[in-house]
């Protein structure tokens, strides 16, 4: 079974926000909720880079670890999903998430949060695949239709890659070899366990350790980029 991952190639992203728009439209996401966002660093300065970020579907998902009602689950493909019927909107997953993925509609008094919403890797929730109930709560289930997440499918420069980690890695590796440089697979070592053999279908290797890592590319867990 494939292990699904996102990869945003910061050397290619042109900040067009098509991924954000595609996501919002495909899942009919309400105003104020951003499952995916585009962040620009060094905006207008030399070295400006743009990165599209959403839930990274971490191996050891912090949201899942801290949820008081245990509403998260990870599919066989490594996608982190949650059950909105159980979610109480406590906000703990947002405290824990490194990527700011969980979103909450404002519901009720004070800062009372509604049920959490986040990227599903276009694969719905616990309801039957492509049912009306699933669509209303979680949006389209494209994986069940044999399609990949729309954000990546839409990406005009193919900066955003989504799918089987082996294929995503191969594409990125080819790019790095062709370009002659890499800039690290952004967010991977924060999201995915990089010890050799720990991650399904992920051979590991220094290519994905980020450029900030030590020379020699020792596998570093939860460090670097």
């Amino acid at each position, binding site marked *: 079974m494939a292990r699904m991952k996102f990869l945003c190639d910061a050397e290619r992203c042109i900040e067009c926000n098509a991924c954000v728009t595609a996501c919002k439209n495909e899942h009919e996401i309400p105003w104020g909720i951003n499952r995916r966002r585009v962040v620009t660093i*060094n905006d207008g300065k030399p070295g400006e880079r743009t990165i599209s970020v959403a839930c990274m579907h971490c191996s050891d998902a912090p949201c899942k670890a801290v949820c008081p009602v245990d509403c998260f689950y990870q599919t066989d493909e490594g996608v982190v999903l949650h059950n909105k019927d159980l979610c109480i909107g406590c906000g703990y997953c947002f405290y824990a998430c490194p990527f700011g993925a969980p979103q909450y509609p404002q519901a009720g008094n004070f800062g009372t949060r509604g049920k959490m919403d986040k990227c599903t890797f276009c694969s719905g929730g616990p309801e039957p695949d492509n049912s009306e109930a699933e669509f209303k709560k979680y949006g389209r289930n494209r994986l069940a239709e044999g399609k990949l997440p729309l954000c990546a499918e839409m990406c005009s420069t193919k900066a955003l890659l989504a799918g089987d980690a082996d294929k995503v890695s191969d594409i990125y590796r080819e790019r790095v070899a062709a370009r002659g440089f890499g800039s690290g697979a*952004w967010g991977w070592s*924060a999201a995915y366990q990089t010890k050799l053999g720990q991650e399904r279908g992920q051979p590991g290797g220094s290519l994905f350790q980020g450029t900030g890592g030590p020379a020699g590319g020792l596998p570093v867990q939860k460090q670097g980029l």
Partner: protein
Amino acid sequence: MEGHRMKTAVAALLLGVGLAGGLALPAAAQSSVRIGGPAAEQQVDRDGPMVPTQIPGQDRGDSWHAIRLGEQGSVSIPNKQAGVLIQSEGEAWRAVRNGPLSQYGSWVLGGILALLALFFLVRGRIRIDGEKTGRTIQRFNAFERGVHWMTAGSFVVLAISGLNLLYGRHTLLPLIGPEPFAALSHYGKLAHNFLGFAFILGVALIFVMWAHHNIPSRHDLTWFLKAGGLFSKGVHPPAHKFNGGQKVIFWSTVVGGAALGFTGVQLIFPFSFATLEEMQLYQLAHAAIAVIMIAIILAHIYIGSIGMEGAFDAMGDGQVELQWAREHHSLWVEDVTGEKVRHAHRHGTPAE
């Protein structure tokens, strides 16, 4: 060609060293790379053109590292906080909450329950030693009792719903199943959000009502030296309206309650007053203080109910047996009734 270049380079280096040594000592001290100035930079040519990802004078790796450490970029959506790509504090929050906080918290709560059970087994119920008079005096009026029970009632619900968030997943959830547990936790969250304000009001009123009775005095020293007579039958150190132990409970409630109220308000209005990092710290503080408060209040509940004969009446109908008052609050009885209580034996009380 190569030889010529070498010569130029050596000349440039010499010139550079000369310049550095003669004119630019401070500069040389700062940088071991740029000794030569413009002439020596030709040497770098052999490294070829920069790759497009490099920025002159800046290490690409450094900027990625800065992002890993939480540097904020810009976003086009209204929520500018979304510009943070990676926040690593959450990992620490998770580690503390799921680790020491839960673990030490369970030890504290288990410990106090074990201590109280042991105390009950060894000491039993603390009885009124002297002959009961059948007469009562008023200890707390209706307003005081109302405030006490508002604070107490809200605290119990807050404590249970709070403990449920920390421990329910591993205790109650497997027992009753995901859906009932989620529903319970949902109503628990709502109750927690609303009753928090009742608790804050209660603690504020408690402070106003009883602070002047709880200023430490010399009698408290005696009380603590005799351990309030808790461990010895017939020992009753003198006390005014509140004895040393009760003063500890009072100030714990006021200080702990204020801390819980402050951190709670920070959390109930997310991002209104605090940043995410501060909220993570407030949440940990809120939970840790709450666990300690629950332990203290468990002891308070014990001694105010099954632990001591006659104690509950003070907060029940407000009328306490005169003999109970003589034993546990001799100086208060003197203040109220003018009666001279004999101090030779049998006075004092543990914390209610």
